[in-house]
């Protein structure tokens, strides 16, 4: 302890205190403050840049998700459209079919009706012509002298041959 105190120089203590105070003040003012400030600035810059990159990545992901969603929507829309189109087509076909059958049935009906009418007319004509024929045959028979039975038959046959039944 004695040596320690003997070694202690108060003058040096005072001088070094003054010099160190000056040194600390100067270092803080001219070195540490600007250095620490720029270091902190740089660190916050790096942090910001990292955050920005993170954000960008997230946005990108969002965008990708959006894209996928859009594609999906478009596909769904297309499908719907296709479905509608198909439906319309089917409907149209069905309608057309219906119309066609209606028309044909109508046509058939009219045809049938006209056939019936014609048939009736034809039958009526046949009836009339048969009646006429019978009458004419009867006339000719009556007109001629019916000498023999054979002649009569010959005559009927001849007449029948002449008249072609239509």
């Amino acid at each position, binding site marked *: 302890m004695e040596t320690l105190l003997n070694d202690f*120089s108060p003058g040096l203590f005072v001088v*070094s205190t003054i010099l160190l105070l000056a040194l600390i003040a100067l270092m*803080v003012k*001219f070195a*540490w403050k*600007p250095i620490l400030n720029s*270091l902190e600035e*740089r660190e916050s810059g790096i942090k910001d840049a990292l955050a920005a990159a993170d954000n960008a990545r997230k946005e990108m992901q969002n965008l990708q998700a959006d894209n996928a969603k859009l594609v999906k929507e478009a596909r769904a829309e297309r499908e719907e459209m296709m479905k509608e189109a198909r439906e319309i087509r089917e409907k149209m076909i069905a309608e057309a079919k219906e119309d066609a059958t209606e028309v044909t049935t109508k046509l058939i009906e009219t045809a049938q009706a006209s056939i019936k009418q014609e048939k009736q007319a034809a039958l009526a004509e046949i009836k009339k012509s048969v009646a006429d024929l019978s009458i004419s045959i009867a006339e000719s028979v009556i007109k001629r002298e019916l000498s023999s039975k054979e002649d009569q038959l010959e005559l009927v046959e001849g007449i029948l041959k002449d008249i072609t039944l239509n």
Partner: protein
Amino acid sequence: MKVAQKTVKFLTTVVIALFTTIGFALDSDTKYDSSNDGGRVNTKTEVEEYILHHLKDSHDFSLWSYTNDDGERKHVGFPLPVILWTSEGLVTFMSSEFHHNDDGHVIVEKKGLKFAKIHSKIYELDKDATVAVFDKEHHATNAQKTFDLSITKSVFGLLLIGVLMLLWFSKLARQYKTKKIPTGFGRVLEPLVLYVRDEIARPNIGEKHYRRFTGYLLTVFFFIWILNLAGLTPLGFNVTGQIAVTACLAAFTLVIYTFSGNKEYWMHMIWMPGVPVLFRPILAVIELIGALIIKPFSLLVRLFANISAGHIVIMSLIAIMFTLKESLGVVGATGLSLVLSFFILLIEILVAFLQAYIFTMLSALFIGMAVAEHSEAH
């Protein structure tokens, strides 16, 4: 910018060159030749004295000395100014007036006062005395110590390292203005600054307060470290081995943590909550002694003792060259000394960093204790 860079480089080189190739400032002293063989250091006691002399502060900057062919003792180095605060006011003269005498035989007269330098300390002789008189233990009986404000070797080293630090770090600070990442020497300094901030200041003081103290801690760290390293060079600085300098550093830390202590810190110091009232005054005494005496004392003594011990060990190992010359032969003694001192030097380089680290770390820890906010009740 370019000019500033060049200036820094130039100054750094000049400083290094100044101390390595110094060949001027030769001055001889033939008047006092205390030892018979020209002041050579040979014997064990001489080595011991030489080491003790080195550990002390000196008033001139001597690099080495030799004896020329005429038997004259030559000293290579330069004198430093002596500034004394005496009973007659300020007295200044150059230390060369003592002619490298260190045992009080050379008397310098200034302003009617007589001064003698004894064991690196300048004494003011009594009015009527003409020579210094010593008692048995070699203490001067007719002289008093003066208040010595000289630019001693330590002060010179302190100034030098301070200027170097300012140049280096202000250059680094200027670099940040133009670019984000420093170049050159700044690239070495930046991680060190970051290390002190992130490993010492921030974890020990806490996120909230560390900014206020980082400047001090950084200054102290680099100051101690660079001076420790300078002490290992042949320049022979022993600044951090001066108890006055370490006491000054410890006093700064003491002042800082005493004045930045918050209410809780003082509460815990003076009137410890959670213990019986009877014990509180006893605890307060213990805490106060711990905070105001033991903490700074351990700081100052640790640094001083480590650096002094390092210097003693290295110089003793170098002195093996002379002391074991007879028993081992010149080559053996030199080889042994070189190998041993080389390894100790490596350890000392580590110690130089470690002591700077520990001083800064403990300062940060003490400051952190003072500003910490305890959330839990004790």
